[in-house]
């Protein structure tokens, strides 16, 4: 019996050491996951894709039935909107042509607003709720790379954290911390944009924290749109992030922080777009890659 006790204690201690070693290993800054991890993720992702597609189809049918019931009301509103859009569309076209022409005269064809879209579908969500992470069905094979911005039609949802061959994990905005900053701005007329950084997510108030670096003359108003500025070098500019809800001075009164509500509901994401920013010069992007780690 005593021998048995000793054996148990021994196993427990060894287990404890392995546990600490493993956690230490996975918490350090790893450039890439091991091949074994990638293989497991891809296998699981493949099967998840297989299951997700039919299930999504069925839930889609129910959603469609739901939608049909309020189609009539929506139709009325939309018709009104179309009339407005027609004139707007004309204006946009003019501006686009203008822009292209001016760019041509300047010999500058690249813009930080541009990105190559990679369409993807969310196939699963992390079961551990502390970790705000979803898996999408596109990986390095499709051109997805680390730190690329992930958006939906409504706005930004997060960034690619660890791509494997055929799937990749996406860190949601709600899981951002001080190691995952986004340089952002509030766009205004006449060039008095307000620049700042999204410095993480406040779980208590459920808002992103937007620290304002450069003060503008006017105060921020509620409901102003926060966009990515593209200054970080990794995310393209002009991705919608959220709306300002409240502005507070920080504890020393030197800078102010705006509470920003993300535009996208983080629990209702299905189809996403991975925004691949064209990198003309790889060296440059490494130097100012503050959006990244």
């Amino acid at each position: 019996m005593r021998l048995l006790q000793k054996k148990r204690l021994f196993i427990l201690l060894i287990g404890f050491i392995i546990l600490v070693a493993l956690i230490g290993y996975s918490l350090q800054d790893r450039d890439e996951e091991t091949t074994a991890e990638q293989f497991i993720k891809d296998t699981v992702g493949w099967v998840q894709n297989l299951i997700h597609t039919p299930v999504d189809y069925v839930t889609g049918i129910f959603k469609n039935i739901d939608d049909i019931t309020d189609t009539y009301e929506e139709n009325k509103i939309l018709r009104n909107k179309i009339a407005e859009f027609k004139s707007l569309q004309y204006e946009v076209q003019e501006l686009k042509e203008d822009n292209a022409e001016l760019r041509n005269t300047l010999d500058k064809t690249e813009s930080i607003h541009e990105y190559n879209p990679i369409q993807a579908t969310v196939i699963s969500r992390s079961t551990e709720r502390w970790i705000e992470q979803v898996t999408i069905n596109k990986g390095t094979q499709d051109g997805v790379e680390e730190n690329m911005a992930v958006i939906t039609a409504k706005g930004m949802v997060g960034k690619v954290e660890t791509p494997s061959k055929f799937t990749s994990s996406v860190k949601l905005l709600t899981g951002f911390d001080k190691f995952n900053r986004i340089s952002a701005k509030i766009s205004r007329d006449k060039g008095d944009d307000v620049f700042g950084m999204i410095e993480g997510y406040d779980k208590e108030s459920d808002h992103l924290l937007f620290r304002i670096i450069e003060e503008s003359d006017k105060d921020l108003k509620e409901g102003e749109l926060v966009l990515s500025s593209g200054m970080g070098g990794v995310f393209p500019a002009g991705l919608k992030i959220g709306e300002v809800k409240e502005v507070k001075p920080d504890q020393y009164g030197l800078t102010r922080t705006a509470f920003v509500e993300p535009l996208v509901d983080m629990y209702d994401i299905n189809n996403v777009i991975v925004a691949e920013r064209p990198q003309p010069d790889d060296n440059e992007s490494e130097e100012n890659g503050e959006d990244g780690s």
Partner: protein
Amino acid sequence: MRRLLIPLILFLLLIMEGVALDILPTPLLKGDLDFVSHWVFIFLILVAIFYDRENTYFSVFYGFLFGLLTDVVYTGILGVYMFSYALGVYVVHGLTKTLHANFFVTILLGTAGLIVVEVFVNFVFSITGIADFVWKDYLIERLTPTIIANILFLLVLYPFFVKRLVKWKEEQLSGSTKF
């Protein structure tokens, strides 16, 4: 060949967990109360109670294996689920010796195992700084809903698998095979 059935079921549960969470209606996930699904662990509890003999430790071994897979796929922090699942199943396995396996004992042991797993996981997460919480809030907002949600899942699994697991036990673990 039949021996592979249990790992296969566990693997399917592991995969379904993430897909289910993606498909679940939004209001369920958004409220103040959070729950974590431990489907793999629930099935492991059934394996520990109804499949394993006193001297076989298949459930603990599967706990290690599928805990590790959960770590790789869903959290990226290796070792946490691996050890908590193994520990939780080991505790349940140990307690089955003293209690006669029936429906209520299963629920009781399931609850005990879930508490061990949840507390261990969150203890490690709080030490490593991944999660930041007050233990009192944690008890109300996470632990309780998690246990209720998972026990519900246990009630769903119970009628489907208990007889089958006992049958597999008779077939596969007769006498001499030891693990």
